[in-house]
């Protein structure tokens, strides 16, 4: 915001100061409200197309050239649908839930920097803010499930809340590793710390032993928190019809979809910021051209993360509830804690090669130990025979 303010101030020197201030407020908000929902619309199309290709199908290709107008058609269709509220539903809560579900997703983007200095608010505690706001979606999910007065909705809500609360812990712990290494909670500073090195790339945290582990943990946690495949138990179609949004139709349903995608994309954005160097990349830097290149880098990384999500969705089957909980508490959480210790090693062991060896060894040993401890949960390979 400050950057935009200064930019505007310099460009429009002769307009009253308060207009510049208001504009500096409104521009990031307009950006967030304009760009991310647009990416959401695009993502729905890309996701359907990519899933189709993964299954050797074409995917939607009828509306417009290559089906590019499909999101428009979907939106129009969903707007024209009847809005049904169950007679016994808790009307107010039922109405409020879809509104609230979009908010956390959008709030996270406030602290995700897209270019040098280009972050809506440079909070000193940006990472914590992003993680804290992410949990608020649990409340909205619960409201939706409870207010519908439907067994399936309630079950979905229970699952959603349990899942979000459980996976919050390893996700935050994985983030703590980055916070420790960067020595700050500000997202902008974290990204700046990942600059430099070879081609602005080699200092990304994902290219550290602890960073790689943290990245994997964070991606898994992010998938679980935004209830995306393979952690989409709260809305498991085959078991719970639609989970917490069973009783929603029309535009409210669209809001649920949007909230879910926005949350998923927000987690992708935070992952990019924390581990993939945010807007850092060859060519990004201060100045107009550098900023544009940086923005390009950020959004291509975001697109890459979204594609990774889609790829995972197209591949892995859904977990069982007990597997889900066991995975969070018995694998992810210990690994995240071990990872924090690894960052400690990294920080204090002085010759870099030694730090590399020790951290990698430490993490590998613990990974093997955890695998051994959880050996009973690893399923045998089963042969299915049809007679």
């Amino acid at each position, binding site marked *: 915001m400050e950057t935009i303010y200064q930019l505007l101030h310099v460009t429009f020197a002769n307009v009253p100061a308060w207009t510049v201030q208001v504009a500096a407020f409104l521009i990031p908000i307009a950006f967030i409200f304009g760009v991310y929902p647009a990416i959401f619309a695009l993502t729905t199309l890309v996701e359907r197309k*990519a899933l189709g290709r*993964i299954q050797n199908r074409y995917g939607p290709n009828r509306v417009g050239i290559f089906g590019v107008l499909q999101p428009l058609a979907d939106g129009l269709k969903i707007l024209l649908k009847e809005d049904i509220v169950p007679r016994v539903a808790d009307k107010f809560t039922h109405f409020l839930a879809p509104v609230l579900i979009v908010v956390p997703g959008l709030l996270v983007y406030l602290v995700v920097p897209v270019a040098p200095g280009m972050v809506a608010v440079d909070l000193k505690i940006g990472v914590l803010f992003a993680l804290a706001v992410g949990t608020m979606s649990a409340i909205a999910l619960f409201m939706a499930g409870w207010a519908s007065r439907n067994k399936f909705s309630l079950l979905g809500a229970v699952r959603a809340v349990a899942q979000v609360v459980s996976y919050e812990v390893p996700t935050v712990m994985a983030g703590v590793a980055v916070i420790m290494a960067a020595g700050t909670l500000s997202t902008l500073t974290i990204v700046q710390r990942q600059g430099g090195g070879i081609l602005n790339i080699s200092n990304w945290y994902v290219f550290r032993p602890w960073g790689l582990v943290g990245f994997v943990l964070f991606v898994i946690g992010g998938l679980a928190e935004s209830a995306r495949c393979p952690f989409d138990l709260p809305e498991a179609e085959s078991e719970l019809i639609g989970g917490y949004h069973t009783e929603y139709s029309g535009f409210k349903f669209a809001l649920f979809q949007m909230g879910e995608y926005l949350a998923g994309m927000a987690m992708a954005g935070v992952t990019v910021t924390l581990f993939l160097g945010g807007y850092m990349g060859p060519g990004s830097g201060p100045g107009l051209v550098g900023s544009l290149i940086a923005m390009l880098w950020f959004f291509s990384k975001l697109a890459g993360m979204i594609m990774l999500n889609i*790829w995972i969705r197209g591949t892995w089957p859904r977990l069982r509830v007990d597997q889900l909980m066991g995975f969070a508490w018995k694998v992810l959480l210990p690994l995240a804690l071990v990872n924090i210790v690894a960052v400690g090693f990294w920080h204090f062991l002085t010759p870099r090669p030694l730090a590399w060896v020790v951290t990698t060894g430490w993490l590998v040993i613990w990974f093997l130990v955890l695998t051994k401890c959880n050996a009973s949960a*690893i399923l045998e390979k089963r042969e299915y025979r049809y007679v």
Partner: protein
Amino acid sequence: MNYPGKGLVEGLAVTARNFVGSYFYKDRLTTVQYPEERIQTPENSRTFPFLVFDESPDKPRCTACKICEVECPPKCIYIVMDRDDKGKPLQRPKAFDIDISVCMQCQICVEVCPFESIKMDNDYEKSKYGRFNDLVQRLPDLLKSNDYYRQIKPVKAAEVDAKLKAEAEAKAAKKAAAVAAAAAKAAATPPAGSAT
């Protein structure tokens, strides 16, 4: 080699191969984009009957013998024989209607026809907006050329063609034999004018 998460990684490899491959190898995409693309229907598929003509639509094979009309179980065929001005039957249909809302595609009409005239079609785009008159197939709708028949059912059409040809040859041979016999008879009969 066995390592934790092997199945997951292998799964990802399979889907990635599908994803990339579907852009480069056309034969991976099994979808038939229906209105633009169609696949040849199998020889034995059948929908509703049609009438075969050989050279032109005004010379159908059908002789309006009404055997199929009688045999059709749901009685969905209606035939009127064509007659000339004097009321002499012309051995061809004036009207030939099949109500495809009644026809149950049993192929009995095809089996009983002695003239290889009525055959099962495999055209499946017969939807109409009306329930009654639109679904009655009239003579012009029903008449289709033998070439069309050969195209949709090559094997059967060849059999039918061979059979008809054999019949025609047999008939011609018989006729020739009859002519020859008549000639022989005429020749055998002494002084009977100029023999040709």
